């Protein structure tokens, strides 16, 4: 096909898109919805990946000890242990003071794959907690606890591991040390994020597949309406010797134009939504949120790809079907 033909047919296709504007808007709307959902799934997945990587970088676990402070509250399934005078029976607990806790830390340090162990006393733990959670009300929070029950926190060992690959084995070893009560690691958070990411991926794939089919149907219908509107032109084209490619191209251009418009709108819409959401999330999650600029181009590429492919497939299906049947009957339209 000559470049002049392509230019002429491209203009015709764009003219059709404008002339058939209501159906174009409907198609663009559905395609945009489809693309935004795809974009969201990608963004959630990418952010999930980054969060997991960040968690993995922070290869630190907190090993809380069975210390005296817990006696004031009792364990979950045991009654508070008290002596005959009502005072707490400290003998029931393995860690009675900071020295004993430091010994536990030394035992942890002996484990392979443990890089560093930092002792956090229950007082330091409370200070840190009140600072993190109640920065403006530290004074009131501390006094409230002191008045009621005293410090509820156990002392803990902050353990840094060398290699995350042996994470689970190292945890088991720490857990077996006498005096260790519970271990809190970010592995739980990582598992939750992985689960959410996988759920988003699976749900996203289904939603995307369904929306892609819907968008193909919508684009096909738009093209079908254009085609029937241009039945006269097609009959004349066929009568004067136009090839099927020549007849087909303006419709494909129309489908692709719809796809490209949808891609641009989706990119803009997703940028605005992501910016609003990420501004809120940055306050909670810090800088682990991926900046939109990092994903803008790949997303635009994906959207343009989806738009172009659905435009080509949607229009080709319909025009080929038409040309096989009515398209050849130009003498009596």
């Amino acid at each position, binding site marked *: 096909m000559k470049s002049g033909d392509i230019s002429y047919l491209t203009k015709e296709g764009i003219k059709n898109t404008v002339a058939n504007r209501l159906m174009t808007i409907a198609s663009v709307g559905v395609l945009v919805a489809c693309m935004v959902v795809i974009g969201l799934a990608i963004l959630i997945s990418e952010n999930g990946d980054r969060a997991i990587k960040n968690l993995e970088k922070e290869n630190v676990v907190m090993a809380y000890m069975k210390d005296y402070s817990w006696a004031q509250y009792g364990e979950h399934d045991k009654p508070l242990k008290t002596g005959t005078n009502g005072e707490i029976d400290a003998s029931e607990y393995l860690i009675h003071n900071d020295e004993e806790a430091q010994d536990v830390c030394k035992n942890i340090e002996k484990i392979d794959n443990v890089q560093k162990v930092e002792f956090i006393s229950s007082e330091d733990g409370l200070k840190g907690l009140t600072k993190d959670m109640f920065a403006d009300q530290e004074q009131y929070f501390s006094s409230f606890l002191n008045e009621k029950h005293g410090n509820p926190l156990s002392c803990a060992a902050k353990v840094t591991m060398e290699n995350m690959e042996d994470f689970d084995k190292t945890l088991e070893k720490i857990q077996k040390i006498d005096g260790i009560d519970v271990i809190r690691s970010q592995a739980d958070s990582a598992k939750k994020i992985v689960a959410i990411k996988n759920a988003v991926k699976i749900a996203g794939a289904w939603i995307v597949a369904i929306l892609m089919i819907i968008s193909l149907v919508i684009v096909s219908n738009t093209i079908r309406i254009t085609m029937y509107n241009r039945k006269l032109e097609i009959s004349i084209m066929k009568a004067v010797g136009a*090839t099927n490619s020549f007849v087909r191209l303006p419709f494909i251009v129309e489908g692709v134009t719809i796809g490209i418009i949808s891609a641009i709108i989706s990119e803009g819409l997703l940028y605005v939504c992501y910016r609003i959401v990420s501004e809120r999330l940055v306050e909670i999650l810090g800088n682990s949120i991926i900046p939109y600029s990092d994903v803008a181009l790949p997303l635009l590429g994906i959207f343009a790809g989806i738009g172009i492919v659905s435009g080509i497939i949607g229009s080709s299906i319909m025009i080929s079907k038409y040309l096989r049947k009515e398209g050849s009957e130009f003498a009596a339209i």
Partner: protein
Amino acid sequence: MIESEINMSESNIENSVTAPEKPVIEFKGVSKRYANGTHALEDVNITINKGEFVFVVGSSGAGKSTFMKLIMREERANTGIIRVNGFNLTKMKRKQVPMLRRTMGIIFQDFRLIPKMSVYDNVAFAMHVVGAPNRRIRKEVINALNAVGLGDKKNSMPNELSGGEQQRVGIARALVNNPDLIIADEPTGNVDPNMSFDIVSMLKSINEMGTTVLMVTHDHELVREFKQRVIMLDSGRIIADNVAGGDEE
């Protein structure tokens, strides 16, 4: 893309229509039966040579439309051989049909002008479709419009023209690609009698310049007036084929 689609094999171009003695249209034992069982044409044998002006007449259901559709390769014959402008339509592949149609100009009863296009654009459209360069389009469209006497109305829209003028635009569109054969499907069906005479006169003038014209009509007055070859169809068979100047019946 167009060129590759049209990639015709030599076997399908049995001859190019240059020699006057060569037939432009040739039917040999052609029958056409539709899927619903209708026998539209039965054992039709006919030859139309280059430069002839032929009227095709017959009542409704006589097979005129099928006859034209077979020539334009809109339908395929069940049996027999059809040759048009050097193409063997019996062997012709679907993708070669556009090249056949480029050798003919078709005039419709209902004009088939695109309402949103000007007179000029309607005619130019037929050239764009076959990939003609813009410079040639500008020249040929003006020539064709002048030939039908509508040079001064090139910027008019179809709805601003009378029925006769619209049909003249249709003729200009059929002429603009310099076809070897003009097929006119009741071109006077939607115009008044005076204009009908003008239109057939115009087709006759085109014919006198060497183009073969095949015209389907119900207008017996015109047939009598112009005294050309008349092929009469009835129930799918040719019941009369009178040479030019002969009586219609």
